[in-house]
């Protein structure tokens, strides 16, 4: 029973860390964006304050059972994926004590599908509100997903073929043994995945889902208060998950939390930087973008991996 207690504690710790890191990164991004825009900007804890405020709203409304469930789906998906993702390198001491969670019981393809779970819930919740903006936002999001999943899957296929495994631990272990990170041994795949990550993080030019000037924040238009707060929490955990997944797959994972933070932050800055200087694409342009160079790079990556 002791083992289970430790596991629950570890799971709790992982969740809190993912949440804190995701939220803080969001805060840092807001601060940095403000600096780029010649402003002082909010504190980096601003997202936490916003969250507490949203949770302390006195009234909340929902448009039916799916609207009530949607935030839960998101946070469920976020927590589940988090349990199956190795936060640190399996060989590190920290990992075995605190973060083993359930990482040996899932693999890459499972994670890929599990990450969709949350979006599906969001889509259903947004659909039930009956706001046309929400529905249009969802269709945009789904369409864009078909766009960026292709280079992303190509990159993952290259990875799985190159290392002959679909387990994330094994991928990390092999990168460790060979001493070469995936991003150097197969740079094309890494680039394809990096381009795909632009779409995943939904910063400009791929912020077409919630585009304020077009759809008035899209799927979340009807969500406020505690619902929006839970969605925000799920979103920040997902940001952490995506970053950690990229670090695990392409950068050999991290041995300690500071290393993890450095690597994830470096990756996180790519879409953020790109977002600062880009206007938004139209939906079909965004999809075309992903089916252009990123896909070509992905195919090249697979060919190299097979070779």
């Amino acid at each position, binding site marked *: 029973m002791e083992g289970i207690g430790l596991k629950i504690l570890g799971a709790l710790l992982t969740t809190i860390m993912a949440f804190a890191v995701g939220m803080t990164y969001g805060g840092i991004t807001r601060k940095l964006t403000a600096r780029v825009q010649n402003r002082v900007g909010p504190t980096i804890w*601003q997202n936490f304050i916003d969250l507490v405020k949203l949770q302390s709203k006195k009234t909340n409304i929902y448009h039916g059972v799916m609207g009530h469930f949607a935030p839960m789906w998101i946070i469920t998906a976020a927590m589940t994926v988090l349990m199956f993702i190795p936060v640190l390198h399996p060989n590190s001491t920290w990992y075995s004590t605190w973060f083993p969670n359930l990482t040996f019981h899932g693999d890459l393809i499972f994670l890929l599908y599990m990450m969709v779970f949350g979006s599906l819930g969001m889509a259903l919740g947004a659909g039930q509100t009956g706001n046309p903006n929400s529905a249009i936002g969802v269709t945009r999001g789904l369409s864009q997903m078909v766009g960026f999943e292709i280079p992303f899957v190509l990159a993952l296929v290259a990875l799985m073929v190159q290392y002959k495994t679909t387990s994330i631990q094994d991928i990390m272990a092999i990168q460790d043994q060979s001493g070469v990170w995936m991003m150097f041994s197969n740079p094309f795949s890494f680039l394809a995945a990096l381009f795909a990550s632009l779409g995943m993080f939904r910063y400009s030019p791929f912020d077409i889902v919630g585009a304020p000037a077009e759809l008035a924040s899209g799927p979340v238009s009807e969500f406020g208060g505690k619902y929006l707060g839970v969605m925000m929490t799920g979103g920040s955990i997902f940001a952490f998950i995506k970053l950690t997944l990229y670090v695990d797959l392409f950068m050999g994972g991290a041995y300690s939390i500071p290393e993890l933070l450095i690597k994830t932050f470096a990756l996180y800055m790519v879409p953020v930087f790109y977002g600062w200087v880009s206007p938004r694409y139209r939906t079909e342009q965004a999809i075309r973008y992903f089916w252009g160079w990123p896909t070509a790079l992905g195919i090249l990556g697979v060919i190299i991996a097979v070779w």
Partner: protein
Amino acid sequence: MENKRNSQTIAEYIKNWSRKHSLFIMAYGTGCGAIEIPATLTSRYDAERLGIRGAATPRQADVLLITGYLATKTLKRVIRVYEQMQDPKYVIAFGSCTINGGMYYDSYNTINVLEKYIPVDVYINGCMPRPEAVIAGFQQLQDKIARGEADNGTRYKENLEWYRANQHRVIKNWRMPDYNW
């Protein structure tokens, strides 16, 4: 600054503190004062450092800015937007026109006293108020929130009939959905 902390429970204090530092303003430029909102939010005045940022829809917003005079046609929309906002919500009225009609006191199409139609937390006078004044207004609102005195929505609900009567005087064709509160 007297925050009346003693009279609030710790939970209330934390809630009010977070509300104070995170104000999502409704993106609704109802009048000409809207021209100073971009200026307030951008580099020189930078309201975001106070936790103020825009929100696209009424569900997410905390603060409704009435930026100047309200034409009767707009008043109808403002009421709808205001009622769709979630408690606690705040209203900041901008410019002289919201106080007494300003230079449009004799116009047949603009209301004169905003307070008669929806409750107002803070008035910012001037035509138009400079960004400094806007920020001062926001700070006044923040103090009010921290003291726990800003209960706009409750005031509206309690006096709903009075407000409705006033609204009906101006809005002749009342075609609004009913709400279940």
